């Protein structure tokens, strides 16, 4: 099954594999959300949305509806 950022649990990490340029705005890419970069789910807001991420050293929060369009390979530790 193809995983997305929305599948991560708190503290889990993954490597971004694909970002849809149609659905994901440029601004998010510019903040580091690019294929090959490491992403960690730092914290989940109440009602499990939005998601607080550490992407490539940048800390930012996005909504679940955006997160499901960012594909990742999960890193199991």
């Amino acid at each position, binding site marked *: 099954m193809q995983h997305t950022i929305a599948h991560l649990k708190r503290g889990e990490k993954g490597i971004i594999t694909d970002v849809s340029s149609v659905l994901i*705005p440029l601004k998010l890419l510019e903040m580091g959300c690019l294929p090959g970069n490491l992403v960690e789910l730092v914290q989940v807001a109440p009602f499990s949305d939005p998601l607080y991420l550490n992407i490539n050293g940048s800390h930012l929060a996005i909504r679940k509806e955006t997160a499901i369009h960012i594909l990742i390979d999960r890193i199991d530790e």
Partner: protein
Amino acid sequence: MSKQLNVALIGNPNTGKTSVFNALTGLNQQVGNYPGITVEKKEGICKLPRGVKAHIIDLPGTYSLNASSLDENVVIELLLNRNDKDFPDVAVVVSDVENLKRNLLLFTQIKDLEIPCLLVVNMADRMRRKGITLDIEYLEQQLETKIAVISTRKNEGIDNLKQQIANYKELSIKPCLSASDIDVEYFNRLRNAFPNQLLYKLWLVITQDVNFGKTDRKVIDAIASFKTKSEGDLKRLQQKETIKRYQFINNVLKKGQTIDASQATDVRAKLDRILTHKIWGYVIFFFILLTIFQAIYDWSSIPMDWIDSSFASLSNWVKDTFPGGGKVTDLIAEGIISGLGGIVIFIPQIAFLFLFIAILEESGYMSRVVFLMDRVMRRFGLSGKSVVPLISGTACAIPAIMATRNIESWKERLITILVTPFTTCSARLPVYLIIISLVIPEGRILGLSYQALTLMLLYLIGFGAAVGSAWVLNKILKIKSKSFFVVEMPNYKVPLLKNVALTVLEKTKSFIFGAGKIILAISIVLWVLASYGPGEQFNNAENIITEQYAQDNLSTDDLEHKIASHKLEHSFIGIAGHAIEPAIRPLGYDWKIGIAIVSSFAAREVFVGTLATIYSVGSDDEETIKNRMAGEINPILGGPLFNFASGISLLLFYAFAMQCMSTLAIVKKETNSWKWPVYQFTIMTAIAYIFALIAYQFLK
């Protein structure tokens, strides 16, 4: 004369760019607007070594040169227009040592514009705590620039920065990577079509979907015939470009930066665990809000009482000292001084509000609130980012509406703009405070005073109205807009005193002068309208009253009082007040309150000042406004005019009515149409009338 150097400060949000600006300019700064738009323009003067003066512009924070908002657009417009008088001789790119990777993206873009470019690495004081070391020489070489490592918190490296700015001629203007490699063939074609233009500049002009104003419109038009790529292809190319830039940056930092994670001590994780906790997060937020309201209501009442009584005695002092001045003395004492008092009395509250908002923003806590509230706010068609405008709205709706610009979705932004004026702004506060103290008894329940509870309730009503109408608008408005949300979660910082103080000073000043002009002008107009009148009743008041009471043996004082109030009733303003009385009588108001309400439609804060003007025109005793109001008698029913029913009715009217011309003007600017402010005005005022009517009819 020495040449003045143009310096532009550019950087991502949260890099401490404004701290650098404050460190360079100190109090030599001013805030205005860019012509035609409401984006703040901060500029200042800095003295560099060897007597060179630098004119410094603090450009709005942006993550890249691909603008997605009006504020970011300003940055690009300036950097693309070499003819602009502010076009920088040197661009100073401010970065934060902890987010160097992301900050460098913008840096590489600006380098491509071939502007002399200096890199500032700020927050150097955090390097050791984070286990970061930098190889400055290597970085300078790879990035084709000079680097100034500074700490605005510790005030280190500022002199060195000034020196480096002065030496700007030594800076290279070579780009540090060739972004055009992403599609060699396409960029070659572009270069051939416009051989005299900078390639990256053309690329920016092609890809920006925002309107660029005057900047190179000709180029854009010419490009239209050249355009060989679809929107989708261009977007893919932009993505490729971003990847390419990050590859370069990652490579450079691999050698130029070492991070020893074992050295890093992180309070972020610990604080986040509490502050964004699903229960504690909300509890803490609630207590912070409580503290803010406590400050506005309680702490600021001391300076406010003092200001109130000072202006009353000043007014009397003028009258006693210049008794022969006639109309001029009257105008100064009753028109101008009471008008000014109505402005100055705001300072404590506004300052407190801006103080708290500045601290919340500076510390990084505001982003956590956005994160915490997004899901909840979305239920009402708002965004987590709407929380900031709604809180700022308790100070003033104008900056609050401008703060909606970082909301990405147009629908969420529009709804936020439309409902923000319901939040209890500080202009409503004087009205609330004075009416509450007149009609709500002094007692306490569970240690809380009834008066404080009433005020709290009014704030809740304001928020309730905002959120409720957002919910309705979300159902009604049929706007398709891409819902997208991203918010940076900056590191926690202890706010810098200098930054907070300058923000409070600046915001308070601009509010006082902005609103102050209107209030003062209205006060003078009101005084004139109250001091003159048409016809026999006004001009012959002395004779009419003296005759009427000839049998009653009134004292001279009483007689003068009767004459004055007869004059007021037949002055221009009295006639206007009487004209609208039928419409407002069902709400429990008399013609004097009517005048105050009408003038409040220019700005709410005029209410108290207007009553002050109206009542002081009628008498000479040293009394504060409040005592005068308490003594007013309802002309029809008898008993005090400001009783429980009419008081509550007035409070509700002010809670809902859209009585602020400046806000309407801002809404027009931000939504680019008269439609929204007109709806806003009509609907809010109708709601206000209905609620006030119901309240009065039930309570009387």
